[in-house]
């Protein structure tokens, strides 16, 4: 093999107390596709962001063509020929492809030159795109091509793709693979950040797996005849399951049943398809998947915040079509959302006031129920602080001043007091420390004594510790529902998360 284009040695990066990357050594070779795998938070995006000039490393060296280099900005990295195609495209929607590209490379070529160069580049690399079309008229796949053309026009040698297929339809995915193959043929160095094993096995020449900031393995893919199972296991790891007190709870009636539930995500993210499952009182049913596989849209539709397109949902015995469900007035569903700072709570209001957010009915008082019973809210707040061990002076403290863990406890306490039949918890322990996590887990386990719990998360440890049944979501579908007592559940879940069906 020829010399590496890029070499990272001992690269480390921290954000606050957390080391996102630790002592990473990596080589990238020209004319090869290097897949970088790992689950959420493994450190892949951070590592590549350093390479692309977005962040600076705290320790270690970065070498290009044998010379040590540092990039103070993405523009500098581009000057050296390293560019990244992000998940969120940086394109101006109302302007044309040509205008967008003229913005970045216009100075080099002049306006007429830009049009010519676009066509040349598109032809050379097989990237069909109409320069006069406006960005909002293009599909995701076409927009991605524009981003690729942008990098190529800036003479990028190294192209990094961050989860490129997360926004593409299957035919667009195939088209992308053809393009990447072409780029490889032209001698470019490609890095593919992904969690989807099938893609890796189809495209990659070399594979690196990251876990908790470290590079676990980095080799050419055929060097060690690895099975899918082995790869998946490496990605997910065999973590020690935290001890939780899980006492037996009898199963009750079915609280929620979905049948063929399909729809889009409210903000245009990935959709979910043909989701079918049941949740009964007394159990915790988890949906696990890597972020961006349709969970957000699914939860939003179940919680009634957005409208699903098709399917039926049965709640507490009554069936609704997707449309009827969206219009049904607030069914008693408790929901702890992923976005605890902007959706789940109001930072500038006090803890007591936050208690009213989803429980207004309980605080109506005075004539015609028009007044707000603030004393009761404050009392409930104080009780929650006591019961859940929240470290704060009073219920008048502002929610914004609380730590992540304490804030989540407040939100959880509030939702628990709603005494709902269905309790949805979305990424409930994301970003929390161990003790807060354990407290929340305990609360969820207790919650199931009175309700059915839907836990949506990307944290495998959480799922394994709490669930009775596990549904793995990938590309918008629930691939399989696994019983928590299965002995090989860890492997199966890990594989399914990477899109590998057994």
């Amino acid at each position, binding site marked *: 093999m020829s010399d590496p284009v890029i070499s990272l040695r001992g690269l480390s990066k921290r954000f606050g107390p957390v080391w996102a990357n630790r002592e990473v050594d990596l080589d990238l070779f020209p004319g090869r596709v290097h897949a970088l795998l790992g689950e959420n938070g493994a450190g892949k995006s951070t590592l590549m962001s350093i390479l692309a000039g977005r962040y600076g490393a705290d320790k270690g060296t970065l070498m290009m063509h044998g010379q040590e280099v540092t990039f103070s900005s993405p523009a500098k990295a581009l000057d050296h020929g390293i560019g990244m195609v992000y998940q969120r495209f940086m*394109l101006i929607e*109302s302007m044309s492809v040509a205008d967008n590209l003229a*913005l970045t490379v*216009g100075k080099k070529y002049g306006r007429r030159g830009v049009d010519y160069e676009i066509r040349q580049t598109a032809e050379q690399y097989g990237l069909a795109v109409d320069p006069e079309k406006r960005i909002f008229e293009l599909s995701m796949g076409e927009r991605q091509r524009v981003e690729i053309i942008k990098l190529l026009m800036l003479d990028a040698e190294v192209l990094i793709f961050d989860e490129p297929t997360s926004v593409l339809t299957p035919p667009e995915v195939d088209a992308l693979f053809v393009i990447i193959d072409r780029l490889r043929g032209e001698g470019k160095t490609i890095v593919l950040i992904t969690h989807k094993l099938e893609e890796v096995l189809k495209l990659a020449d070399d594979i690196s797996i990251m876990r908790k900031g470290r590079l676990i393995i980095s080799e050419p893919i055929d060097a060690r005849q690895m099975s899918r199972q082995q790869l998946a296991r490496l990605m997910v790891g065999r973590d020690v399951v935290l001890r939780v007190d899980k006492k037996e709870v009898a199963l009750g009636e079915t609280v929620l049943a979905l049948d063929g539930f399909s729809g889009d995500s409210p903000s245009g993210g990935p959709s979910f398809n043909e989701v079918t499952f049941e949740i009964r009182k007394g159990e915790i049913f988890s949906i696990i998947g890597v972020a961006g596989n349709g969970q957000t849209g699914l939860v939003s539709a179940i919680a009634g915040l957005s409208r699903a397109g098709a399917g039926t949902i049965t709640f507490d015995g009554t069936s609704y079509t997707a449309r009827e469900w969206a219009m049904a007035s607030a069914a008693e569903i408790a929901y702890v959302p992923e976005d605890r700072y902007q959706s789940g709570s109001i930072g500038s209001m006090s803890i007591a006031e936050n208690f009213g957010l989803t429980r207004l009915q309980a605080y109506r008082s005075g004539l015609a129920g028009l007044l707000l019973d603030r004393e009761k809210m404050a009392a409930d707040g104080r009780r929650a602080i006591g019961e859940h061990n929240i470290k704060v002076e009073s219920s008048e403290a502002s929610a914004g001043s609380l730590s992540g863990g304490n804030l989540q406890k407040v939100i959880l306490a509030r939702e628990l007091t709603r005494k709902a039949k269905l309790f949805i918890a979305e990424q409930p322990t994301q970003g929390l420390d161990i003790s807060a996590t354990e407290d929340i887990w305990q609360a969820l386990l207790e919650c199931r004594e009175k309700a059915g719990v839907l836990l949506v998360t990307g944290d495998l440890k959480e799922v394994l510790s709490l669930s009775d049944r596990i549904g793995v979501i990938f590309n918008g579908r629930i691939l399989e529902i696994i019983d928590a007592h299965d002995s090989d559940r860890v492997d199966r879940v890990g594989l399914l998360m990477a899109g590998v069906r057994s």
Partner: protein
Amino acid sequence: MIEDLTFIAQISIKSSVAVLLATVGGIITERSGVLNLGIEGMMLVGALAGFAAGHFTQSPVVAVAAGTMAGGALSLVHAFFTIALRSNQVLSGLALTILGTGLANFLGRPLIGQTGVRIRQLPIPYLSDIPVIGEVFFNQSPFAYAAYLLVPLAWFVLFRTRTGLVLRAVGEDARSADVAGVNVELTRTLSVFVGGLFAGLAGTYLSLSYTPGWKETMTGGQGWIAIAMIIFCTWNPLLAFFGALLFGGLTALQFFFQATSMDLIPSYVLKMLPYLLTIGVLVLVSASSRHRKSASPADLGVPFYREL
């Protein structure tokens, strides 16, 4: 009949110049994503500065330069607060109008009723002899001729040059423009300044040519009309010509009806029309903005933060 129409048309153009200039300047500013409601204040300041400079130096060139620069200078206050300090653009613009009105009225008190330099109508040889059209278009103040040139120039720069592309990019999606290497703050500051220059020029027209003279409330709300006009002509300088002409035409009709005691359309309805029509356009623009064809610059009014 023809004389009447010609007369109305000529007055229409005359009455449209100030709004036209202010609107074009405002379009440039808003295209970069900054809302500047202070146009009325900048026009007044420009009117006073131009008049005062003319009064003291008796030089038309100095007067025009002073008026124009005064508008630009005041606009920089708005630029500082909204761009550097990320203050709310609506409030800053309103404060700018109040400040500008106050400054102009305050400093201009001694000049009320004084004479300054007067820039008269200047018929263009040959062109002004063309029947009807010549009288209407080519027997106007030099400011009008300047407007004839500045309007297509503004359109050209906005839509056919790289400068215009950068400016519009900043107004549509400042984040993407920033990532592409554009200096968002500088671009916006310059566009606000240019808008201020146009507003100052518009005010100078009023005090040196149209009225002429200085009195408080000289601009008579034309700054606010300009703000409405920007939307009415969907941020397109060429359409601004017609929009301003519409306003000028309504004004001319008012004069005409008053002078001849005709009352075809009640004058209060005529006065209301520019505002009502603009609201109508706003509704249409909002309704069609899903198709993003003629919507406002997407980032208009949104302060730019590089970190959130």
